Structure formats: structure tokens, C-alpha cells
């Protein structure tokens, strides 16, 4: 498979997953505010952690002077300035899909394109203005549809593996970021209000984990929640589960380690996975939840870079000959500036 095509599939999957997680987070937070609002807390207290989680704190304050719910929701959903807003994520996913449109099943293209058309049409904004919850649900549903359609129509070839890697790497990253929203709360269950059961419950909702967790444990216990979101081997959004899927896809992509040794991403993923396969919640608490998550995110970033360098960028061009005078060709998003050059004539 062409590296560019693999790269586009990977980013298409990542951005769809990113949009879905953002929608789920906003939905869960709305619930939380409605449940906790009567206790007279500052509204901003609920929104500041969200901006921290998505890493949009600075970007938001460049545009707004105050912290209010509607502004944060606008910023995270539709503001064009925010490159990671829901609408922009869907746009980027669609742009990637469009570039490889003839190389993915038509159904997959249409599932992405339909969601994009809904979100960018007046109809999407109308839903958003009427009922926020419906809007976020549309996005979650659109993303689930995309995943289902891909599962039902795609060949289980390299393209599929890159779709899996993109989806699960993004999901592992997002789950850990969501957990981080609660990492400063007390980890011991107690009867005092300081224990914040609603926050933990909201965390479960934002990871779509509430149902799964309740089956596994009836009461909201911070340590159990953390264990579930990090280490569950059956919950499909736990970090452990995600890393297993990434590992599986990477192993399928790579030839068995021969003389040339194991490819860097396979090694990095295996090492990271071991922490979740063999670690315990106690060891995580000992490290400190926030510190643990920090370390995890930097490792996920490294893994992402390793994958890019190994399968897309080609660090090992030297195997073919001298690498002198290699022009560095940027891959990834296409630039509008090139449109002009596209317009050279075809003999119509």
C-alpha cells in the first residue's frame, strides 16, 4: 500500500475518533452540570478542566475573556479558529477520506461525507441551537456508523490495520486525558462531599463506560473506576484494550522479526502494553495518577511518531542508495497553494 494512502486512512480514523470523544465529553459535562448545578458551584469550575484536558486552555482565552459554558461549547464544537473543534475534526477526516476516495469502499467514504455534510449544513447548526444533546449524539452516532461501515466493508488488508491503529491510538490518548480530569480528586471513597461521586460518574459517562462499569462493580469507587478505565481487558475503551488492538495491528503489518530485528513501533508498543498487561492499580497510584498519565501520553506520542517514520516517512531510504540530495517531501495534509499547479491543462 502507498504510504500516503496509509497515512490518510490513519488520520481519517484518528480525527473521527477525536470528534466522537469530544462530543461525548461535552455531553457528559452537560449532565454533570445539570446534576450538580443545584449545589451553587461556579459554572467555570466545570468548564476549566475540560479546556485543560483538550489542551485548548490558551486558544480559548485568546478568543474569550470570560469562561462560560456556551462559549466553551462553541469553541470546542464549531469555532473555525480551533483546529481541533468537532467540526474541524470531521472536516479533516473527510479531507483525508476524499484524497483516497477511490481506494476505500464507497460506503466508508459516504459515511464520512454524510456526517460532514450534516455538520456543515444549516441543518447541523439548527440541531445544535435547538438541543445540544441531540447534536452531540448525532456526532457520536455518525462516528459509530463510520466504524461499523468500515468493519462491514473493508478488506482486512494493510488499510484496515492502519484504520485500527489510528482509532485505538487516539482512543487510548483520549481515555487517559479524560481520566486526568479527575486525577486531582481524592482517591479514597468516603461519605464526605469532597469525594465527588458525580465527577467520577461523569467521567464514566464521558468514556461511555458507565454501563460496563456498573456491571463490573455496583458502587462508584475512585480506585475501581481508574482500574476499569486503565486496565479492563474487556472494556473496549480502556487503555489496556486499546494498546492490545494497536499491538495486534502493528504485528500484522510487520514481517516477523528476522535479522533486521523488530521494527521500532512494534517494540515501543509492546513495552508500553506490558505496563497495562502486567501492572496493577496500586502501582499506578503509587506513581501518582497525573504523573502516570503524563508519562503515558508522551509514550503514545513517541509511538505515533515511530509509526509515521517507519511506514510513511521512510527513515531507511538509505537501503536503496546514497541519500545525498534527498529533497524532504512533506507528507500529510495537502496545501491549497498547490491547487494552482493542478490546473495545468488536460487535453479535453
Amino acid at each position, binding site marked *: *500500500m*502507498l*504510504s*500516503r494512502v*496509509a497515512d490518510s486512512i490513519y488520520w481519517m480514523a484518528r480525527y473521527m475518533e477525536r470528534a466522537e470523544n469530544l462530543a461525548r465529553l461535552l455531553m457528559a459535562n452537560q449532565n454533570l452540570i445539570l446534576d450538580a448545578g443545584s449545589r451553587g458551584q461556579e459554572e467555570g469550575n466545570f468548564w476549566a478542566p475540560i479546556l485543560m484536558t483538550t489542551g485548548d486552555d490558551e486558544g480559548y482565552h485568546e478568543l474569550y475573556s470570560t469562561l462560560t459554558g456556551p462559549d466553551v461549547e462553541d469553541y470546542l464544537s464549531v469555532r473555525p479558529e480551533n483546529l481541533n473543534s468537532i467540526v474541524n475534526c470531521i472536516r479533516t477526516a473527510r479531507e483525508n477520506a*476524499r*484524497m483516497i*476516495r*477511490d*481506494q476505500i469502499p464507497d460506503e466508508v467514504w459516504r459515511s464520512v461525507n454524510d456526517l460532514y455534510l450534516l455538520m456543515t449544513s444549516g441543518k447541523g447548526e439548527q440541531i445544535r441551537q435547538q438541543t445540544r444533546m441531540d447534536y452531540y449524539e448525532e456526532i457520536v452516532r455518525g462516528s459509530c456508523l463510520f466504524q461499523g461501515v468500515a468493519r462491514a466493508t473493508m478488506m482486512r488488508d*494493510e488499510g484496515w490495520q*492502519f484504520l485500527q491503529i489510528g482509532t485505538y491510538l487516539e482512543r487510548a490518548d483520549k481515555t487517559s486525558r479524560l481520566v486526568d480530569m479527575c486525577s486531582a480528586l481524592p482517591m479514597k471513597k468516603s461519605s464526605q462531599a469532597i469525594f465527588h461521586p458525580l465527577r467520577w460518574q461523569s467521567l464514566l459517562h464521558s468514556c461511555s463506560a458507565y454501563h460496563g462499569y456498573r456491571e463490573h462493580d455496583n458502587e462508584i469507587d475512585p480506585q475501581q473506576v481508574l482500574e476499569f478505565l486503565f486496565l479492563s481487558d474487556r472494556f473496549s475503551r480502556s487503555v489496556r484494550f486499546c494498546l492490545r488492538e494497536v499491538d495486534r495491528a502493528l504485528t500484522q*503489518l510487520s514481517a516477523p522479526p528476522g535479522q533486521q530485528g523488530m521494527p521500532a513501533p512494534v517494540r515501543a508498543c509492546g513495552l508500553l502494553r506490558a505496563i497495562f498487561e502486567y501492572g496493577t492499580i496500586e502501582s499506578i497510584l503509587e506513581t501518582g495518577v497525573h504523573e502516570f498519565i503524563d508519562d503515558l501520553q508522551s509514550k503514545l506520542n513517541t509511538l505515533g511518531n515511530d509509526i509515521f517514520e517507519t*511506514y*510513511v516517512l*521512510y527513515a*531507511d*531510504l538509505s*537501503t*536503496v*542508495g*546514497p541519500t545525498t540530495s*534527498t*529533497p524532504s*517531501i512533506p*507528507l500529510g495534509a*495537502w496545501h491549497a*497553494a*498547490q*491547487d494552482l*499547479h*493542478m*490546473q*495545468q*491543462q*488536460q*487535453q*479535453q
Partner: protein
Amino acid sequence: MDTLANYDTGNFFDEVFSDDRQVRPHYDRVIKSLSTLSPNDFAMRQQTADAAFLKQGVTFTVYGDEKGTERIFPFDLMPRIIPQSEWEHVEAGLIQRITALNLFLQDVYHGELIIKDGEVPREVVESASHYRPEFKGIRVPHDIYIHICGTDLVRDDAGTYFVLEDNGRCPSGASYVLENRQAMKRSFPNLLQSLPVRPVDSYGSMLRETLAYLAPAEVIDPVIVVLTPGVYNSAYFEHAYLARQMGVPIVEGRDLIVRNDRVFMRTTKGLVQVHVIYRRIDDDFLDPLVFRKDSLLGVPGIVNAYRAGHVALANSIGTGVADDKATYAYVPKMIRYYLDQDPILPNVPTYLASDESEKTYMVENLDKLVVKAVNESGGYGMLVGPHSTKDQQEEFRKRILATPRNYIAQPTLSLSRHPVFVEDHFEGRHIDLRPYVLSGEKVQVLPGGLTRVALKKGSLVVNSSQGGGSKDTWVLWDDKAACEGCGTSTPA
């Protein structure tokens, strides 16, 4: 109501009806069959066909349109039929012509015998904007330069076929030929089955075979790719379509990399060497090291790889000197010079503004002539004299006098017409024909080609970018069968 009741052939050569309004024998079955359809039936089938094109993304992008709107290339359901006897003549003419053009290119880039013998003036060759002196003396695989040619043919008021121009760089449209046939299979299966029509769906394998022949001799199983400028190019649909038909990857410039004069594509499994490139990028954009430095579409070093013989390009570099509109005037001479034969398909008489007396004639008769800029294609930069205003004529007069080498003129031909379905009845519209000629181990012509229609009433311009449409073209392999049992009708 009969959709053909008020059909007026005008003073034109009509493909379907002879001067005394008799149906020509090869259209017999088709007309009988279509006349059983009500205007409504026909309109319904037309809508279904249009919807299918849109759904399948059989579209092109219109340049200069800010929104980058994708449009379908309008399709008319009534097929154009070419009898076998007529096609044999056309096919022989096309093979003769491409053979001469390839010999001319080989000559121009090597011995220049035709120039030295005074048959083609040196200035005509050297001033052609697509002439590539950098390629002098470079041998290309099997000495073939134009592997894929789309020659535009027209018929005059006597029904004679003329060559209007040779497209020897990146001719487009072959995908529409295949898609149009698919549309006809869906819309008129019985009619198609009842006639002895030559199939076109082997084009993908013909093209692949032609390309594989160019691979370096030592390569047993060559890797072939289609090189496209990218998804935003107007003809991207076609590039992807042809790649799929051939079962080869479609790549962009950034997917390819040159090492040691060899071309590789970047894949997830590493670099894979490429042996033949069907490039749909013009010379100018092909290699920023050799041609336009600002091209982001091309592949740095690809020209050297081609020179070294490690990769083949189709079409070759510098073929534009042969399809230049001024060179065109000399093609009949080339045929005589290289093949010692008379041209089977005549040229349209052509005046070159670079010739003093012809220039004078041109500027004095702008209202009667079709003037074309030599380096433009797609129906851009042209003046259709009888349909132009005084201001437009004055504008062209100035341009011709300023840069005579850039202009040619031809008499306004009375192009043949064909019935086209308009709202609820048929009207005559001007058409042309672009057959596709492939030169590999042998020269092959795809039966028929793309029949283009000037959909605007009275218009003579058929290009897709100028509001043209197309028809399926049916070449018969047995003329009698098309009229067999004249008198019985075939259900549509």
C-alpha cells in the same frame, strides 16, 4: 407524440437521416426502436442515466469555479452509429497517421532529416512551445513517443472525415467511452443486444499491454503506475478510473522518489521500483529539476531516470511538437515523406499566420474563419468567426499581428449533426469524434471513441469545459445486421 416528427436536418450532413430524410440503413433498428418510446419514457431513462453518473462520481471539475463544483459530463442517450465499412477507413487512417507522427518525433529528436530535406521548416519545429531540445539524441523505448493518442475527427457537409487535431500529450476522455457504454447497457439492453456492436471494455487491458511493452527489457513483471496531479485535477476521476481498469496503483508526485536514476514508490513495506509511468501530468510539471522549478506535482530526477532507461514514460517527453497546431498543417507531408503514402484521412485546410500571405488572408477574413491559439486546448483561446462579434474579431486581429506564430485559422466547417434529446423531442446538434489510438508492440484503435456533442444550439464547440456533452459510439462489425429484417421493430 413522435419525438422525431418535427426533426429538422437543416442544411447539414445528418448522421441519421440522408438528404431526402430517409433513415440511413445502419440506424434502421435504432430509429425503429426509439420511435416506440414516448417522450416521457425517454426522459425517464435519461434521468436515470444522469443520476447513475453523479452517484458514481463520473464528474469533472470546472476551472475558474470558486466552489470547485463537480459536474457530470452531460450524456445523450441516443447512440452514434458508425458502420463497419466506414470504421475500417477511419481506423486505417488513424494507424497511418500515428505511425507518421511517431516517425516524425523520432526524426525531429535525432537526424532531423525531414527538416534537412526541406519538407518541414525548422522554425515551425523549433518555435513549437512543446518542443524539447533537451531531448535531442535520447533514445526512447522502441522509438515510440506517443503511446496514447486522442485524435479529433469531424465530418463536413459531404460526410467526409477530417482530422481536426492530434492530441499527443495527455488526451483525456477514454473513461467516458467506457462509462457511456455502461450507461447504455443499463438503459437500452435489448437494443444493444440486437445490434452487432463492437465492445469497448477491453480498453483497460489494451492500455496495460501497451504500457507493459515499454518496460526495460530485463524486467519480467513490470510495475506500472498512473501518475496524477491529484484529487483536485479536473480529470482525476479518469485517472483513478483507468488505474482501476488496469489494476495498477494511482500515485501522486510525492509518492515517488528517485534514487540512482531509478524511480521508486513509497509503500508501507518500503520502496518499490516502478518501471512504467502512465503520466497525466504535462511535461512542464513533470520534473522541477528540468522543467518548471516551482512544480510541486512532479518528481525531482524523473527525467534523468527516463534518460537512463530505467523507467519508461507514456507519453514520452516532447510529444507536443507533433500535436502543435502549426505542425498539424505538415502532417500530410509527413505521411508522404516517411511512409510514401497518400493520407487516408485529410487535414482541414489550415492557414498559418507565420506565413505572410496566409496571415493577410486570415486577418481579412476573420468573420469566416475559426482561429485557434496553437498552444491551447480544451476549446480555450479560440475564435469562431461566424459566431463572433466585431470586438472579438478586432481583439484577435491584434493578437495575430502581435504573435503570428501563435495562431492558425481554418475555414468554418459545416460539421455533421446528430439528433440529441432535448426536453421532449430530438434536435440536431454538431458532433465530433475522438478515437483513442494506442501504440505499443502494434498500433490498436479502440472501436469508436468518444463522440462529443455541442449541446448549445448552433454551437460548434464540443469540449467538456465549454458546455459539451457526449454520446456512446457504436461501431458495427456487421453492417447488414443493423438493418436486417427492416420492417420489424425491436423493443427498446
